[in-house]
């Protein structure tokens, strides 16, 4: 089974909750974890991974380059680039901004001097594999700074994870998705069997989780909700109301607990570092609910 954990917004505790859930489920199930936040991966860190066993470079991003020797400075490429990535430098040369180029090759197609603009394949990042000290494997990716196509890295991660699942006869893939609703999240949610949404009771988090829920609905996946930092904003009932209206079952609520930031500094799941904390008691109940309602 493939379970994706998403939140829409960053900083609501998605990765910390995921790390503790993995910890609680690891003994009963054969799991693989996928950190699908290729721009800011940290599930591996939270699970104490310090060294990767295998690292694959992902060559896939394409970037346009302009040969200033043959360029006649007509400016057509700059006019036609859909993302405004071509600029004129101090010497009057037309230059592609490699940190924003999407690699669509429109500039190459419209340039009147053949061969002046070439589309080059460059590294977009790396995908890595490790065994956590808890016994289950993890796949993680890191997009190189300023590169496009983080979604493709995530798709590749999931492919690799599927292959490992087959080889090692694993049962469940737990995908920790990125913030937002863009390509990385779509790649994370697409193909999952169930989505677990994590939100905190604030207007910003509600707005973002509603958006990611629409993406989940698009893929017709059943969704569940975990409310994190449930007590930080007592007057705010809209998150629960929304879940009720949409018929999204609430798996549980985790109170704000200073054990969580402390455990993060220790780079350990909070359930392991502070098993008696309020948050740990809550996550144990949530893990039970997941076993009964989702994994079965």
């Amino acid at each position, binding site marked *: 089974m493939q379970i994706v954990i998403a939140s*829409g*917004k*960053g*900083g*609501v505790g998605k*990765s910390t909750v995921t790390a503790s859930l993995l910890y609680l489920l690891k003994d009963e199930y054969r799991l693989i974890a996928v950190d699908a936040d290729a*721009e*800011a991966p*940290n599930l591996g*860190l*939270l699970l104490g991974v310090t060294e990767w066993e295998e690292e694959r470079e992902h060559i896939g991003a*394409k970037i346009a380059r302009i040969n200033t020797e043959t360029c006649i400075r007509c400016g057509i490429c700059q006019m*036609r680039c*859909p*993302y*405004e990535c071509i600029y004129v430098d101090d010497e009057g040369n037309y230059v592609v*901004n490699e*940190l*924003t*180029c*999407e*690699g*669509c*090759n*429109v500039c190459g*197609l*419209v340039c009147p001097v053949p061969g002046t603009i070439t*589309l080059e394949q460059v590294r977009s990042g790396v995908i890595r594999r490790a065994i956590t000290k808890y016994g289950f494997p993890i796949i993680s990716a890191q*997009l190189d*700074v*300023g*590169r*496009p196509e*983080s*979604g493709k890295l995530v798709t590749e991660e999931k492919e690799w994870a599927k292959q490992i699942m087959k080889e090692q006869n694993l049962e469940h893939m737990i995908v920790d998705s*990125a*913030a*937002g*609703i*863009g*390509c990385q*999240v*779509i790649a994370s949610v697409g193909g999952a069997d169930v989505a677990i949404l994590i939100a905190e009771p*604030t*207007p*910003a988090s509600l*707005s*973002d989780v509603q*958006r*990611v829920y*629409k*993406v989940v609905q*698009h893929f017709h996946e059943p969704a569940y909700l975990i409310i994190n930092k449930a007590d*930080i*904003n007592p007057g*705010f009932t809209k998150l629960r109301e929304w879940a009720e209206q949409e018929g999204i079952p609430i798996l549980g609520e985790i109170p704000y607990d200073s054990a969580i*930031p402390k455990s*993060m*500094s220790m*780079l350990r799941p909070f359930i392991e570092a502070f098993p008696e904390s309020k948050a740990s008691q809550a996550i144990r109940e949530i893990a039970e609910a997941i076993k009964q309602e989702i994994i079965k």
Partner: protein
Amino acid sequence: MQIAISGGKGGTGKSTVAINVAVELAKRFKLILADLDVEAPNDHLLLGVELQNEEEVNQFMPKFDYSKCIKCRKCAEVCEEHAIITLKDGTPFLMPTLCSGCRACEIVCPVPGAIQEGSRLIGHTYVTPTPYGFTLVTGKLREGEERSMPLVVAAKKRLKNLDYELLIVDTAAGTGNTVSKAIEGSQLLIAVTEPTPLGIHDTELILQLGKLMGIETWVVINRADLGDVNEVYERAERYNAKVIAEIPYSENIVKTYVSGTPIVTTDYPEAEIFRGIAERIYEFLRG
């Protein structure tokens, strides 16, 4: 003038810094705050305002006129997104969600009129007056759309027609090319970070981006008492970036965040820290 506020990872308090600094600096500049976190725009919620002046962002999408198409497959071959599939006989079909609207297919199609102008709604931009003397510009990607780049570009285009002296850009999390697109054109980049091992890891990436883009970079440490700030200072130094402020974890900040009231408009002692950051930026911009 333009400055960018970014953070590497999500949830570091980037938007809190952005809105508070905007409220302060709006006293001195004709100011626009641009929320370019198009996948999860929240600045309006933190400012307690409703988005206004909605404009659609539509993207080109090829529409095939099969009576003219000669099934040469050129459009499919040139499409970097593999959004066009062809049948055995060469008939092209579009998979709309993969299309980025770049028009490469239209450019290569040898038959005039075989590819016609279609379009798809991919999101919206908004221009919202705030009660704090500045305007908020927001880009919002439609759910189910994959690419945030066109929305960032559209929001930046809408900005160009507005009148301002200072633009503050609030970016998405991460360090991919849409974040660099948002930052592009800034004289100053402020990275908001947390002193946790995870925060430090992500800060390093945003510092790298600042360096690659050749932009002066400052660091603001949020929730400074949750970890070892020395680590952050050390990393910042490595990239020639200055740490300009430390913000402690505070219930008051959480309270104002949740209620949609910028903390600089209150009497809480923490307001002074944000005013201090705004003052530093003001001095920097004045030269």
